[in-house]
Protein backbone atom coordinates (compact mmCIF):
# COMPACT_ATOMS: atom_id res chain seq x y z
CA UNK A 1 0.00 0.00 0.00
CA UNK A 2 1.22 3.53 -0.80
CA UNK A 3 2.66 5.27 2.24
CA UNK A 4 0.63 8.17 3.59
CA UNK A 5 3.69 9.49 5.41
CA UNK A 6 7.14 9.25 3.96
CA UNK A 7 10.15 10.56 5.88
CA UNK A 8 13.61 10.51 4.40
CA UNK A 9 16.94 11.51 5.96
CA UNK A 10 15.19 13.75 8.48
CA UNK A 11 17.39 15.47 11.03
CA UNK A 12 16.70 18.18 13.55
CA UNK A 13 19.32 20.11 15.49
CA UNK A 14 18.03 22.75 17.89
CA UNK A 15 19.68 26.17 18.25
CA UNK A 16 21.34 24.90 21.42
CA UNK A 17 23.19 22.31 19.33
CA UNK A 18 21.10 19.43 20.67
CA UNK A 19 20.50 16.80 17.99
CA UNK A 20 16.93 15.72 18.55
CA UNK A 21 16.54 13.67 15.35
CA UNK A 22 19.32 11.91 13.46
CA UNK A 23 18.73 10.83 9.89
CA UNK A 24 15.25 9.36 10.33
CA UNK A 25 13.81 7.26 7.50
CA UNK A 26 10.28 5.97 7.92
CA UNK A 27 7.22 5.14 5.86
CA UNK A 28 3.77 4.79 7.35
CA UNK A 29 1.03 3.06 5.38
CA UNK A 30 -2.48 4.30 4.98
CA UNK A 31 -4.84 2.96 7.63
CA UNK A 32 -2.29 1.44 9.98
CA UNK A 33 -1.75 2.09 13.68
CA UNK A 34 1.89 2.87 14.23
CA UNK A 35 3.29 3.07 17.75
CA UNK A 36 6.40 5.09 18.38
CA UNK A 37 8.14 3.97 21.52
CA UNK A 38 11.06 5.57 23.23
CA UNK A 39 12.26 6.86 26.56
CA UNK A 40 11.81 10.49 27.62
CA UNK A 41 13.74 12.89 25.42
CA UNK A 42 14.26 10.29 22.68
CA UNK A 43 12.80 12.57 19.97
CA UNK A 44 9.23 11.25 19.68
CA UNK A 45 7.53 14.62 20.15
CA UNK A 46 10.08 16.41 17.95
CA UNK A 47 9.39 13.95 15.13
CA UNK A 48 5.62 14.50 15.41
CA UNK A 49 6.08 18.27 15.71
CA UNK A 50 8.14 18.42 12.52
CA UNK A 51 5.50 16.49 10.55
CA UNK A 52 2.72 18.72 11.91
CA UNK A 53 4.55 22.00 11.19
CA UNK A 54 5.25 23.11 14.76
CA UNK A 55 9.01 22.55 14.61
CA UNK A 56 11.13 23.28 11.54
CA UNK A 57 13.37 20.49 10.31
CA UNK A 58 17.09 20.96 9.78
CA UNK A 59 17.53 18.60 6.84
CA UNK A 60 15.66 15.85 5.03
CA UNK A 61 12.22 15.52 3.53
CA UNK A 62 8.76 14.77 4.89
CA UNK A 63 5.84 13.96 2.58
CA UNK A 64 2.25 13.50 3.72
CA UNK A 65 -0.22 12.12 1.19
CA UNK A 66 2.34 12.71 -1.56
CA UNK A 67 2.75 16.41 -0.66
CA UNK A 68 5.75 18.11 0.88
CA UNK A 69 5.05 19.50 4.36
CA UNK A 70 6.59 22.78 3.21
CA UNK A 71 5.45 23.54 -0.33
CA UNK A 72 2.16 21.71 0.17
CA UNK A 73 1.62 22.65 3.81
CA UNK A 74 -2.04 23.55 3.40
CA UNK A 75 -2.86 20.11 2.00
CA UNK A 76 -0.69 18.17 4.44
CA UNK A 77 -1.95 19.98 7.53
CA UNK A 78 -5.52 19.57 6.34
CA UNK A 79 -4.92 15.81 6.42
CA UNK A 80 -3.42 15.81 9.91
CA UNK A 81 -5.01 15.96 13.34
CA UNK A 82 -2.75 16.39 16.37
CA UNK A 83 -3.42 15.51 19.99
CA UNK A 84 -0.54 17.08 21.90
CA UNK A 85 1.02 15.62 25.00
CA UNK A 86 0.22 18.57 27.25
CA UNK A 87 -3.32 19.72 28.01
CA UNK A 88 -3.07 22.91 25.94
CA UNK A 89 -6.68 24.09 25.83
CA UNK A 90 -8.59 27.38 25.73
CA UNK A 91 -9.85 26.93 29.28
CA UNK A 92 -12.32 29.82 29.23
CA UNK A 93 -14.23 28.40 26.24
CA UNK A 94 -16.99 25.83 26.22
CA UNK A 95 -16.29 22.38 24.78
CA UNK A 96 -18.56 22.98 21.78
CA UNK A 97 -17.09 26.38 20.87
CA UNK A 98 -13.51 25.12 21.24
CA UNK A 99 -14.13 22.14 18.95
CA UNK A 100 -16.06 24.24 16.41
CA UNK A 101 -13.27 26.82 16.39
CA UNK A 102 -10.74 24.19 15.31
CA UNK A 103 -12.94 23.11 12.42
CA UNK A 104 -13.19 26.69 11.16
CA UNK A 105 -9.47 27.31 11.72
CA UNK A 106 -8.80 24.41 9.37
CA UNK A 107 -10.93 26.15 6.76
CA UNK A 108 -13.98 23.89 6.88
CA UNK A 109 -17.60 25.06 6.98
CA UNK A 110 -19.82 24.46 9.97
CA UNK A 111 -21.00 20.87 10.33
CA UNK A 112 -23.07 20.41 13.46
CA UNK A 113 -23.73 16.73 12.73
CA UNK A 114 -20.02 15.91 12.59
CA UNK A 115 -19.22 17.82 15.78
CA UNK A 116 -22.13 16.10 17.53
CA UNK A 117 -20.89 12.71 16.33
CA UNK A 118 -17.37 13.13 17.67
CA UNK A 119 -18.54 14.64 20.96
CA UNK A 120 -20.89 11.70 21.46
CA UNK A 121 -18.19 9.23 20.44
CA UNK A 122 -15.92 10.69 23.11
CA UNK A 123 -18.72 10.90 25.73
CA UNK A 124 -18.47 14.69 25.73
CA UNK A 125 -21.91 15.56 24.39
CA UNK A 126 -23.47 16.23 27.79
CA UNK A 127 -20.49 18.47 28.62
CA UNK A 128 -20.70 20.47 25.40
CA UNK A 129 -21.78 23.68 27.16
CA UNK A 130 -19.37 23.29 30.07
CA UNK A 131 -16.33 25.51 30.27
CA UNK A 132 -13.16 23.51 29.69
CA UNK A 133 -11.63 24.71 32.95
CA UNK A 134 -14.43 22.94 34.83
CA UNK A 135 -13.56 19.52 33.34
CA UNK A 136 -11.42 16.80 34.88
CA UNK A 137 -8.00 15.97 33.41
CA UNK A 138 -9.33 12.93 31.57
CA UNK A 139 -12.20 14.91 30.06
CA UNK A 140 -9.80 17.65 28.98
CA UNK A 141 -7.79 15.03 27.12
CA UNK A 142 -10.95 13.94 25.34
CA UNK A 143 -11.54 17.56 24.32
CA UNK A 144 -8.05 17.58 22.80
CA UNK A 145 -8.95 14.48 20.80
CA UNK A 146 -12.28 16.02 19.74
CA UNK A 147 -10.46 19.15 18.56
CA UNK A 148 -8.01 17.02 16.59
CA UNK A 149 -10.90 15.21 14.90
CA UNK A 150 -13.00 18.33 14.20
CA UNK A 151 -11.64 18.75 10.67
CA UNK A 152 -12.01 15.07 9.70
CA UNK A 153 -8.28 14.29 9.41
CA UNK A 154 -6.94 11.26 7.53
CA UNK A 155 -3.91 10.99 9.81
CA UNK A 156 -4.14 11.32 13.57
CA UNK A 157 -1.13 11.88 15.80
CA UNK A 158 -1.63 10.98 19.44
CA UNK A 159 1.28 12.14 21.56
CA UNK A 160 0.99 10.10 24.75
CA UNK A 161 -2.80 10.28 24.72
CA UNK A 162 -3.37 8.24 27.83
CA UNK A 163 -0.76 9.80 30.11
CA UNK A 164 -2.44 10.43 33.44
CA UNK A 165 -5.71 8.85 32.34
CA UNK A 166 -7.41 6.16 34.43
CA UNK A 167 -7.78 2.61 33.17
CA UNK A 168 -11.48 2.85 32.22
CA UNK A 169 -10.94 6.03 30.22
CA UNK A 170 -7.87 4.51 28.60
CA UNK A 171 -9.91 1.55 27.36
CA UNK A 172 -12.56 3.99 26.04
CA UNK A 173 -9.90 5.86 24.12
CA UNK A 174 -8.53 2.66 22.63
CA UNK A 175 -12.04 1.92 21.39
CA UNK A 176 -12.23 5.35 19.77
CA UNK A 177 -8.84 4.78 18.13
CA UNK A 178 -9.96 1.39 16.80
CA UNK A 179 -13.19 2.92 15.45
CA UNK A 180 -11.14 5.59 13.67
CA UNK A 181 -8.86 2.96 12.18
CA UNK A 182 -11.94 1.14 10.91
CA UNK A 183 -12.93 4.37 9.18
CA UNK A 184 -9.55 4.34 7.42
CA UNK A 185 -7.75 6.91 9.57
CA UNK A 186 -4.01 6.34 9.93
CA UNK A 187 -2.93 6.59 13.55
CA UNK A 188 0.50 7.33 14.91
CA UNK A 189 0.78 7.18 18.67
CA UNK A 190 3.62 7.71 21.04
CA UNK A 191 3.32 6.11 24.39
CA UNK A 192 5.05 5.12 27.57
CA UNK A 193 2.51 2.37 28.15
CA UNK A 194 3.99 -0.54 26.27
CA UNK A 195 0.77 -2.49 26.77
CA UNK A 196 -0.94 0.20 24.73
CA UNK A 197 1.36 -0.39 21.78
CA UNK A 198 1.12 -4.14 22.30
CA UNK A 199 -2.66 -4.06 22.24
CA UNK A 200 -3.21 -1.43 19.56
CA UNK A 201 -0.37 -1.19 17.11
CA UNK A 202 0.14 -2.89 13.78
CA UNK A 203 3.73 -1.76 13.65
CA UNK A 204 6.15 -0.50 16.21
CA UNK A 205 9.03 1.93 15.88
CA UNK A 206 11.59 2.38 18.61
CA UNK A 207 13.39 5.70 18.85
CA UNK A 208 16.33 6.31 21.14
CA UNK A 209 18.64 9.34 21.29
CA UNK A 210 17.08 10.73 18.12
CA UNK A 211 17.70 7.56 16.12
CA UNK A 212 15.04 5.22 14.85
CA UNK A 213 16.64 1.98 15.96
CA UNK A 214 13.92 -0.40 14.88
CA UNK A 215 10.72 -0.51 12.82
CA UNK A 216 8.91 -3.82 12.73
CA UNK A 217 5.50 -5.41 12.45
CA UNK A 218 4.45 -5.91 16.03
CA UNK A 219 3.73 -9.62 15.56
CA UNK A 220 6.98 -10.20 13.72
CA UNK A 221 8.85 -8.33 16.39
CA UNK A 222 7.29 -10.38 19.13
CA UNK A 223 8.06 -13.57 17.25
CA UNK A 224 11.54 -12.59 16.23
CA UNK A 225 12.64 -11.34 19.54
CA UNK A 226 10.14 -12.95 21.85
CA UNK A 227 11.70 -15.14 24.48
CA UNK A 228 9.65 -17.76 26.24
CA UNK A 229 10.27 -19.05 29.71
CA UNK A 230 9.23 -22.34 31.29
CA UNK A 231 8.79 -21.91 35.04
CA UNK A 232 8.60 -24.76 37.50
CA UNK A 233 7.56 -23.81 41.01
CA UNK A 234 9.26 -26.07 43.54
CA UNK A 235 7.75 -27.53 46.70
CA UNK A 236 10.92 -26.93 48.70
CA UNK A 237 13.64 -24.40 47.81
CA UNK A 238 16.89 -25.77 46.44
CA UNK A 239 20.29 -24.62 47.70
CA UNK A 240 22.00 -25.61 44.44
CA UNK A 241 20.97 -26.97 41.09
CA UNK A 242 21.98 -30.56 40.20
CA UNK A 243 24.66 -30.59 37.49
CA UNK A 244 22.46 -32.48 35.05
CA UNK A 245 19.79 -29.81 35.16
CA UNK A 246 22.36 -27.03 34.71
CA UNK A 247 23.64 -28.82 31.63
CA UNK A 248 20.12 -28.94 30.21
CA UNK A 249 19.89 -25.13 30.58
CA UNK A 250 17.88 -24.75 33.77
CA UNK A 251 18.58 -21.86 36.11
CA UNK A 252 17.51 -21.36 39.68
CA UNK A 253 15.53 -18.21 40.54
CA UNK A 254 13.63 -16.66 43.43
CA UNK A 255 16.00 -17.90 46.13
CA UNK A 256 15.90 -21.40 44.87
CA UNK A 257 12.12 -21.60 44.72
CA UNK A 258 11.73 -21.60 40.96
CA UNK A 259 13.39 -23.49 38.14
CA UNK A 260 13.47 -21.58 34.88
CA UNK A 261 14.20 -22.68 31.36
CA UNK A 262 14.54 -19.94 28.70
CA UNK A 263 14.11 -20.59 25.02
CA UNK A 264 13.40 -18.80 21.77
CA UNK A 265 9.75 -19.43 21.00
CA UNK A 266 10.24 -19.10 17.27
CA UNK A 267 13.29 -21.30 16.72
CA UNK A 268 13.55 -23.69 19.63
CA UNK A 269 11.11 -26.48 20.15
CA UNK A 270 12.03 -27.78 23.59
CA UNK A 271 11.26 -31.34 24.56
CA UNK A 272 9.15 -30.47 27.61
CA UNK A 273 8.60 -34.12 28.55
CA UNK A 274 12.37 -34.71 28.63
CA UNK A 275 12.91 -31.59 30.72
CA UNK A 276 10.25 -32.62 33.24
CA UNK A 277 11.59 -36.18 33.37
CA UNK A 278 15.04 -34.79 34.20
CA UNK A 279 13.52 -32.74 37.03
CA UNK A 280 11.66 -35.81 38.34
CA UNK A 281 14.83 -37.91 37.91
CA UNK A 282 16.67 -35.47 40.19
CA UNK A 283 13.99 -36.18 42.78
CA UNK A 284 12.75 -32.61 42.80
CA UNK A 285 9.03 -32.25 43.49
CA UNK A 286 7.10 -29.30 42.11
CA UNK A 287 3.63 -27.80 42.56
CA UNK A 288 3.08 -25.70 39.43
CA UNK A 289 4.28 -25.27 35.85
CA UNK A 290 3.78 -22.17 33.73
CA UNK A 291 5.16 -20.55 30.60
CA UNK A 292 5.66 -16.86 30.05
CA UNK A 293 6.11 -14.94 26.78
CA UNK A 294 8.31 -11.86 26.94
CA UNK A 295 6.32 -8.68 26.43
CA UNK A 296 6.97 -5.78 24.13
CA UNK A 297 8.18 -3.94 27.20
CA UNK A 298 10.97 -6.46 27.74
CA UNK A 299 11.93 -6.20 24.07
CA UNK A 300 11.81 -2.41 24.22
CA UNK A 301 13.94 -2.22 27.34
CA UNK A 302 16.40 -4.65 25.81
CA UNK A 303 16.71 -2.52 22.67
CA UNK A 304 17.08 0.80 24.44
CA UNK A 305 19.74 -0.59 26.77
CA UNK A 306 21.87 -1.80 23.84
Amino acid at each position, binding site marked *: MAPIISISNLSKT*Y*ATGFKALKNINLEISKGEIFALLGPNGAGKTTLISVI*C*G*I*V*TKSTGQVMVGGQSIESG*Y*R*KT*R*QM*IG*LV*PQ*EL*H*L*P*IFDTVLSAVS*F*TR*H*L*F*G*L*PRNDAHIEKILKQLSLWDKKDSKIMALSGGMKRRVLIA*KALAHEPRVLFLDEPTAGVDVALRKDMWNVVRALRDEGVTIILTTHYIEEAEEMADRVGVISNGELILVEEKKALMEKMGQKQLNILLDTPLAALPKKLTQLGFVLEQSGQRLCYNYDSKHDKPDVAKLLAAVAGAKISYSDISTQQSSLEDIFLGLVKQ
Partner: protein
Amino acid sequence: MNWRGAFAIFEYEMKRFFRTIMQSIISPVISTVLYFVVFGAAIGSRISQIDGISYGAFIVPGMIMLALLGQSISNASFGIYFPRFSGTIYEYLSAPISAFEMILGFVGAAAAKSILIGLIILATSYLFVPVTIMHPFWMITFLVLTAVTFSLFGFIIGLWADGFEKLQIIPLLVVTPLTFLGGSFYSIKVLPPFWQTVSYFNPVVYLVSGFRWSFYEVSDVSRNIALGMTGVFMLACLAGVWWIFHTGYRLKT
Protein backbone atom coordinates in the same frame (compact mmCIF):
# COMPACT_ATOMS: atom_id res chain seq x y z
CA MET B 1 -6.56 31.34 0.82
CA ASN B 2 -8.06 30.08 4.10
CA TRP B 3 -10.61 32.85 4.66
CA ARG B 4 -12.58 30.75 7.12
CA GLY B 5 -9.49 30.22 9.25
CA ALA B 6 -8.67 33.93 9.28
CA PHE B 7 -12.28 34.79 10.11
CA ALA B 8 -12.35 32.16 12.87
CA ILE B 9 -9.41 33.92 14.58
CA PHE B 10 -11.01 37.34 14.01
CA GLU B 11 -14.36 36.17 15.40
CA TYR B 12 -12.71 34.47 18.39
CA GLU B 13 -10.78 37.61 19.30
CA MET B 14 -13.85 39.82 18.89
CA LYS B 15 -15.87 37.52 21.15
CA ARG B 16 -13.34 38.14 23.89
CA PHE B 17 -14.08 41.87 23.52
CA PHE B 18 -17.85 41.43 23.56
CA ARG B 19 -17.72 39.05 26.53
CA THR B 20 -16.65 42.04 28.59
CA ILE B 21 -18.67 44.56 26.63
CA MET B 22 -19.57 46.79 29.60
CA GLN B 23 -15.96 46.96 30.68
CA SER B 24 -14.88 47.60 27.10
CA ILE B 25 -17.28 50.54 26.67
CA ILE B 26 -17.45 52.02 30.16
CA SER B 27 -13.70 52.24 30.65
CA PRO B 28 -13.00 54.50 27.61
CA VAL B 29 -16.12 56.58 28.34
CA ILE B 30 -14.98 57.23 31.90
CA SER B 31 -11.44 58.09 30.74
CA THR B 32 -12.87 60.54 28.20
CA VAL B 33 -15.05 62.22 30.81
CA LEU B 34 -12.07 62.51 33.15
CA TYR B 35 -9.90 64.07 30.46
CA PHE B 36 -12.64 66.58 29.73
CA VAL B 37 -12.97 67.41 33.42
CA VAL B 38 -9.22 67.78 33.96
CA PHE B 39 -7.97 69.17 30.66
CA GLY B 40 -11.18 70.63 29.26
CA ALA B 41 -12.78 72.29 32.29
CA ALA B 42 -10.03 72.74 34.90
CA ILE B 43 -7.05 73.58 32.69
CA GLY B 44 -8.87 74.31 29.45
CA SER B 45 -10.84 77.15 31.06
CA ARG B 46 -7.55 79.06 31.33
CA ILE B 47 -6.66 78.37 27.70
CA SER B 48 -8.98 80.20 25.39
CA GLN B 49 -8.24 78.76 21.95
CA ILE B 50 -5.52 76.98 19.98
CA ASP B 51 -5.39 77.73 16.26
CA GLY B 52 -8.88 79.21 16.55
CA ILE B 53 -10.40 76.07 18.11
CA SER B 54 -11.68 75.80 21.67
CA TYR B 55 -9.24 73.79 23.84
CA GLY B 56 -11.88 71.19 24.67
CA ALA B 57 -12.52 70.47 21.00
CA PHE B 58 -8.78 70.69 20.17
CA ILE B 59 -7.89 67.75 22.45
CA VAL B 60 -10.56 65.38 21.06
CA PRO B 61 -8.41 63.93 18.20
CA GLY B 62 -5.46 63.60 20.60
CA MET B 63 -7.59 61.75 23.14
CA ILE B 64 -8.86 59.39 20.49
CA MET B 65 -5.29 58.76 19.32
CA LEU B 66 -4.14 58.14 22.89
CA ALA B 67 -6.81 55.47 23.36
CA LEU B 68 -6.28 54.06 19.86
CA LEU B 69 -2.55 53.49 20.35
CA GLY B 70 -2.95 51.97 23.80
CA GLN B 71 -5.87 49.73 22.85
CA SER B 72 -4.32 48.56 19.56
CA ILE B 73 -1.10 47.54 21.27
CA SER B 74 -2.70 45.87 24.28
CA ASN B 75 -5.37 44.02 22.25
CA ALA B 76 -2.93 42.68 19.68
CA SER B 77 -0.13 41.84 22.10
CA PHE B 78 -2.45 40.01 24.48
CA GLY B 79 -4.25 38.29 21.58
CA ILE B 80 -1.11 36.50 20.36
CA TYR B 81 0.69 36.26 23.70
CA PHE B 82 -2.10 34.36 25.44
CA PRO B 83 -2.07 31.33 23.07
CA ARG B 84 1.72 31.26 23.46
CA PHE B 85 1.38 31.40 27.23
CA SER B 86 -1.37 28.76 27.43
CA GLY B 87 0.22 26.51 24.78
CA THR B 88 -2.77 26.60 22.40
CA ILE B 89 -0.47 28.19 19.80
CA TYR B 90 0.24 24.62 18.61
CA GLU B 91 -3.17 24.62 16.99
CA TYR B 92 -2.47 27.77 14.95
CA LEU B 93 0.94 26.45 13.89
CA SER B 94 -0.40 23.08 12.80
CA ALA B 95 -3.43 24.50 10.95
CA PRO B 96 -3.43 25.06 7.17
CA ILE B 97 -3.22 28.79 7.67
CA SER B 98 -0.59 31.19 6.34
CA ALA B 99 1.20 33.92 8.29
CA PHE B 100 -0.82 36.51 6.38
CA GLU B 101 -4.12 34.88 7.35
CA MET B 102 -3.06 34.67 10.98
CA ILE B 103 -2.17 38.37 10.97
CA LEU B 104 -5.45 39.18 9.25
CA GLY B 105 -7.30 37.48 12.11
CA PHE B 106 -5.28 38.71 15.10
CA VAL B 107 -4.34 42.19 13.88
CA GLY B 108 -7.69 42.74 12.15
CA ALA B 109 -9.56 42.01 15.39
CA ALA B 110 -7.24 44.15 17.51
CA ALA B 111 -7.59 47.06 15.07
CA ALA B 112 -11.39 46.63 14.85
CA LYS B 113 -11.68 46.72 18.64
CA SER B 114 -9.60 49.84 19.01
CA ILE B 115 -11.45 51.58 16.17
CA LEU B 116 -14.73 50.82 17.98
CA ILE B 117 -13.34 52.33 21.16
CA GLY B 118 -12.08 55.36 19.22
CA LEU B 119 -15.57 55.90 17.83
CA ILE B 120 -17.10 55.53 21.32
CA ILE B 121 -14.75 58.24 22.60
CA LEU B 122 -15.68 60.42 19.63
CA ALA B 123 -19.40 59.93 20.39
CA THR B 124 -18.83 60.78 24.08
CA SER B 125 -16.92 63.92 23.08
CA TYR B 126 -19.98 65.22 21.24
CA LEU B 127 -21.72 65.41 24.62
CA PHE B 128 -19.11 67.85 25.97
CA VAL B 129 -17.71 69.95 23.14
CA PRO B 130 -18.67 71.03 19.61
CA VAL B 131 -16.68 68.60 17.46
CA THR B 132 -16.60 69.04 13.71
CA ILE B 133 -15.11 66.60 11.23
CA MET B 134 -14.18 68.51 8.09
CA HIS B 135 -12.71 65.55 6.23
CA PRO B 136 -14.54 62.35 7.31
CA PHE B 137 -12.74 60.26 4.68
CA TRP B 138 -9.29 61.28 5.95
CA MET B 139 -10.47 60.92 9.54
CA ILE B 140 -11.42 57.30 8.89
CA THR B 141 -8.22 56.74 6.87
CA PHE B 142 -5.99 57.96 9.72
CA LEU B 143 -8.06 56.06 12.27
CA VAL B 144 -7.78 52.78 10.38
CA LEU B 145 -4.11 53.19 9.39
CA THR B 146 -3.07 54.04 12.93
CA ALA B 147 -5.11 51.20 14.44
CA VAL B 148 -3.64 48.68 12.00
CA THR B 149 -0.07 49.96 12.39
CA PHE B 150 -0.12 49.85 16.16
CA SER B 151 -1.94 46.54 16.21
CA LEU B 152 0.93 45.18 14.11
CA PHE B 153 3.33 46.72 16.60
CA GLY B 154 1.36 45.12 19.45
CA PHE B 155 1.49 41.77 17.63
CA ILE B 156 5.29 42.03 17.52
CA ILE B 157 5.39 42.86 21.25
CA GLY B 158 3.12 39.87 21.95
CA LEU B 159 5.54 37.60 20.10
CA TRP B 160 8.63 39.13 21.66
CA ALA B 161 7.36 39.08 25.25
CA ASP B 162 8.17 36.01 27.32
CA GLY B 163 6.25 37.13 30.40
CA PHE B 164 3.23 39.25 31.28
CA GLU B 165 5.44 42.04 32.63
CA LYS B 166 7.21 42.36 29.28
CA LEU B 167 3.84 42.91 27.59
CA GLN B 168 3.55 46.11 29.62
CA ILE B 169 7.10 47.44 29.34
CA ILE B 170 6.97 48.92 25.82
CA PRO B 171 3.46 50.46 26.17
CA LEU B 172 4.32 51.95 29.58
CA LEU B 173 7.87 53.09 28.99
CA VAL B 174 7.78 54.02 25.32
CA VAL B 175 4.31 54.45 23.86
CA THR B 176 2.57 56.37 26.66
CA PRO B 177 5.37 58.99 27.03
CA LEU B 178 5.57 59.39 23.24
CA THR B 179 1.80 59.87 23.08
CA PHE B 180 1.69 62.46 25.85
CA LEU B 181 4.69 64.27 24.33
CA GLY B 182 3.33 63.90 20.81
CA GLY B 183 0.93 66.82 20.90
CA SER B 184 -2.16 64.95 22.03
CA PHE B 185 -3.11 67.77 24.39
CA TYR B 186 -1.21 70.68 22.85
CA SER B 187 0.17 71.96 19.59
CA ILE B 188 3.90 71.40 19.40
CA LYS B 189 4.11 74.96 18.02
CA VAL B 190 3.78 76.19 21.61
CA LEU B 191 7.08 74.49 22.51
CA PRO B 192 10.48 76.25 22.39
CA PRO B 193 12.25 75.69 19.02
CA PHE B 194 14.62 73.05 20.39
CA TRP B 195 11.84 70.90 21.75
CA GLN B 196 9.84 71.41 18.58
CA THR B 197 12.75 69.89 16.64
CA VAL B 198 12.98 67.02 19.13
CA SER B 199 9.23 66.42 18.77
CA TYR B 200 9.60 65.81 15.03
CA PHE B 201 11.46 62.61 15.91
CA ASN B 202 8.37 61.42 17.75
CA PRO B 203 6.23 59.33 15.39
CA VAL B 204 3.07 60.08 17.37
CA VAL B 205 3.31 63.76 16.37
CA TYR B 206 2.56 62.77 12.77
CA LEU B 207 -0.34 60.52 13.70
CA VAL B 208 -1.99 63.14 15.92
CA SER B 209 -1.34 65.93 13.43
CA GLY B 210 -2.84 64.11 10.50
CA PHE B 211 -5.81 63.03 12.54
CA ARG B 212 -6.40 66.53 13.95
CA TRP B 213 -6.15 67.99 10.46
CA SER B 214 -9.03 65.75 9.34
CA PHE B 215 -11.16 67.32 12.09
CA TYR B 216 -10.26 71.02 11.99
CA GLU B 217 -7.81 71.52 9.12
CA VAL B 218 -5.14 72.54 11.64
CA SER B 219 -1.99 70.53 12.19
CA ASP B 220 1.65 70.69 13.18
CA VAL B 221 2.74 68.93 9.99
CA SER B 222 1.04 68.70 6.59
CA ARG B 223 -1.47 65.96 5.87
CA ASN B 224 0.68 64.31 3.25
CA ILE B 225 3.74 64.17 5.50
CA ALA B 226 1.56 62.73 8.28
CA LEU B 227 0.14 60.17 5.88
CA GLY B 228 3.60 59.31 4.52
CA MET B 229 5.06 58.84 7.99
CA THR B 230 2.11 56.66 9.08
CA GLY B 231 2.74 54.55 5.98
CA VAL B 232 6.44 54.27 6.87
CA PHE B 233 5.60 53.05 10.41
CA MET B 234 3.18 50.54 8.99
CA LEU B 235 5.75 49.22 6.53
CA ALA B 236 8.32 48.96 9.34
CA CYS B 237 5.88 46.92 11.44
CA LEU B 238 4.95 44.75 8.45
CA ALA B 239 8.65 44.11 7.82
CA GLY B 240 9.05 43.11 11.48
CA VAL B 241 6.12 40.70 11.33
CA TRP B 242 7.36 39.27 8.02
CA TRP B 243 10.78 38.64 9.59
CA ILE B 244 9.15 36.91 12.59
CA PHE B 245 7.18 34.50 10.43
CA HIS B 246 10.09 33.99 8.04
CA THR B 247 12.48 33.00 10.80
CA GLY B 248 9.90 31.46 13.14
CA TYR B 249 11.20 33.74 15.93
CA ARG B 250 9.46 32.80 19.21
CA LEU B 251 6.96 30.74 17.24
CA LYS B 252 8.87 27.72 16.02
CA THR B 253 12.00 26.09 17.34
